[in-house]
């Protein structure tokens, strides 16, 4: 009997079909042949009925664990009078892929995980701080550049709108204040520059059309210089007249010197006449940098040209695009160098003497030392 059922076991295990024909099924066959009910087995072996059913139907995963599968199988086989080892062997062949050893995952206390996580957070914070500092410094550097450019408009804020159509609207407010101080307190850039845009914006051909509006603007802007300026503008007469007009204006002595300078400078070719024509106008108001009395060197633009003046430590002192006729009065300091993007459009004037053109139009020149004596010697050498 036992051997017969063992043979049957192996046969059943070797031929798996759609219906479960494995070791459990053969146990069931043997049990039914013995005329035993499942409840009998359950009450004798104390194995719960669902587990026995699971064994008979081959649902071994429903049993609590590998050790219990083999334990229950052994008991069941023994109870039925089969050879337990034979049954177990059949089962193992059948379920060779079944996990024999359970994976042991011990419950781990949480705090152990938290420590590295804290370090991670700290590290991330430090890293974020470093990145932010670097970024901030970079931004600072950028902003520094911005401020350099904007420093001039801030200084002369009221002047920029003058060159633009919207100017009249914005101007009136600062303007009244300026004239009050301008003649007496500060013969400085303010009043002269106030007129710059007018002059520069008013080239000869356009002058006629510009004239009506500009006087109005200038009238609002600067009551004191205005009486002189509008006639000059509106008449749009040759340079000498403009010069005289500006001279006639109640401008401070700085302007007077400026105009004399332009007069002296303006004898060269006729082509420069237009430029020089604007010069007086600009000399009256349109200049940057220090006051005229302080500056020995002027950088004048005969054509729109970008210039940059650097100090001894390579720091930027002045950077701007000079429009035709605008000028920059170089502070009396040592070690200043000039960089220009349009050598042909820039003229250097030292103590009222104009140097020859620095180079061709559109040529970039850099490292021109703004030292009056050296420039003079260079000039005399060239002349000689």
């Amino acid at each position, binding site marked *: 009997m036992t051997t017969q059922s063992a043979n049957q076991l192996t046969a059943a295990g070797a031929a798996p079909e759609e219906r479960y024909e494995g070791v459990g099924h053969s146990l069931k066959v043997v049990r039914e042949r013995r005329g035993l009910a499942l409840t009998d087995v359950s009450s004798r*072996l*104390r*194995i*719960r009925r669902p587990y026995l059913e699971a064994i008979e139907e081959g649902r071994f995963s429903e049993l*609590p*664990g*590998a*050790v*219990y599968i*083999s*334990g*229950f199988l*052994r*008991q069941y086989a023994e109870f039925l009078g089969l050879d337990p080892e034979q049954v*177990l062997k059949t089962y193992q062949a059948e379920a060779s892929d079944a996990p*024999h*050893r*359970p994976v*042991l*995952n*011990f*419950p781990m206390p949480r705090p152990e995980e938290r420590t590295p996580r804290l370090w991670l957070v700290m590290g991330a914070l430090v890293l974020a701080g470093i990145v932010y500092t670097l970024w901030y410094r970079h931004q600072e550097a950028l902003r520094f550049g911005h401020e350099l450019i904007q420093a001039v408009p801030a200084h002369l804020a009221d002047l920029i709108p003058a060159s633009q159509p919207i100017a009249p609207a914005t101007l009136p407010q600062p303007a009244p204040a300026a004239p009050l101080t301008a003649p007496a307190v500060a013969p400085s850039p303010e009043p002269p520059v106030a007129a710059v845009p007018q002059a520069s914006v008013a080239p000869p051909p356009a002058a006629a059309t510009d004239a009506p509006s500009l006087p109005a603007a200038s009238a609002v802007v600067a009551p004191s210089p205005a009486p002189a300026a509008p006639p000059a503008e509106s008449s749009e007469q040759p340079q000498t007249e403009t010069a005289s007009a500006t001279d006639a204006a109640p401008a401070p002595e700085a302007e007077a010197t400026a105009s004399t300078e332009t007069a002296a400078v303006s004898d060269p070719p006729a082509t420069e006449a237009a430029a020089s024509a604007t010069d007086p106008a600009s000399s009256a108001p349109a200049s940057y940098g220090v006051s005229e009395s302080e500056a020995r060197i002027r950088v004048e633009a005969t054509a729109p040209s970008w210039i940059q003046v650097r100090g001894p430590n390579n720091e930027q002192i002045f950077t701007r695009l000079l429009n035709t006729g605008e000028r920059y009065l170089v502070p009396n300091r040592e070690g200043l160098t000039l960089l220009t993007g349009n050598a042909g459009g820039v003229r250097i004037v030292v103590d009222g003497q104009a140097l020859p053109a620095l180079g061709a139009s559109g040529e970039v020149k850099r490292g021109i030392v703004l030292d009056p004596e050296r420039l003079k010697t260079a000039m005399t050498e060239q002349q000689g």
Partner: protein
Amino acid sequence: MFSRLMGFMSADMAIDLGTANTLVYVKGRGIVLNEPSVVAITNNRGKKQVLAVGDEAKQMLGRTPGNIEAIRPLRDGVIADFEVAEEMIKHFIRKVHNRRSFASPQVIICVPSGSTAVERRAIMDSAESAGARRVFLIEEPMAAAIGAGLPVTEPTGSMVVDIGGGTTEVAVLSLGGIVYSRSVRVGGDKMDEAIIAYIRRNHNLLVGEASAERIKKQIGSAAPPEDGNGLSMEIKGRDLMNGVPKELVINQRQIAESLAEPVGAIVEAVKVALEHTAPELAADIVDKGIVLTGGGALLGNLDLVLRHATGLPVSIADEPLSCVALGTGRALEEMKTLKHVLYNPPY
């Protein structure tokens, strides 16, 4: 780093230091040694020397001349003879450990859950002086449960009964720890003693321990056969009445009768453990039942007796004799994840 290097060079081992048998599991190689825990010592003009250890010594047990002493250094699961136990551990470590490796091995030894701190300390000291670099201890029921393949880390109760040579450990485990454990000093040795006492009392025949063990292994049964007297075997010993060697036939029913007392003690221990089990764990155990490990699990009909006494399904683990060694070995292999079950007093 250094310890990892040392671990690479030395063959770490797990030792199931049992009362009856000592099994040694070497990392990466499995169980490499399974020998009786017996040491034969010769007394050479007052100087004690180890004559034999293991199988060889076991054959000498009870058959020694005056100058040789065959000793079982462990009694009731703990070290009884410190020096001899140390010699035995040293011998087994040397036998297993590769001579060419410089480093001394890390050793995990299992101890009965009921052993005292002094007994644990004695085992650790023995292993250390036997050449272990570091000694960890693991409690026997945990090792047995891991070795049997019980899902000890799951949040479900599992009951394991490990019947060793000296002690029987009953434990309920869940979530990687021992919820309840009970260690009774009843095991294979007590069964042998019971057989000896029964035969002497009823048949006036004195048999040796080795014979008693053989009887137990061959026809031992926890419960008398349902009908008849069951198997029988010839036993030889010395007649107490007239002092001559004698041979007689003993049957399974008689042995079952003789074993009633130690088996009753085991059943009692299991019942007490069940009484102390929390209801949720008890519910889990009703489903899955009890798993028997250890050599005592091989005693015929013991599962039947326990099933009747407790009303629970009782399964015998595969390879019950090596469950503890396999579990200790697994703790060695997976020392990182199983470090929680190791016991190592800091010093």
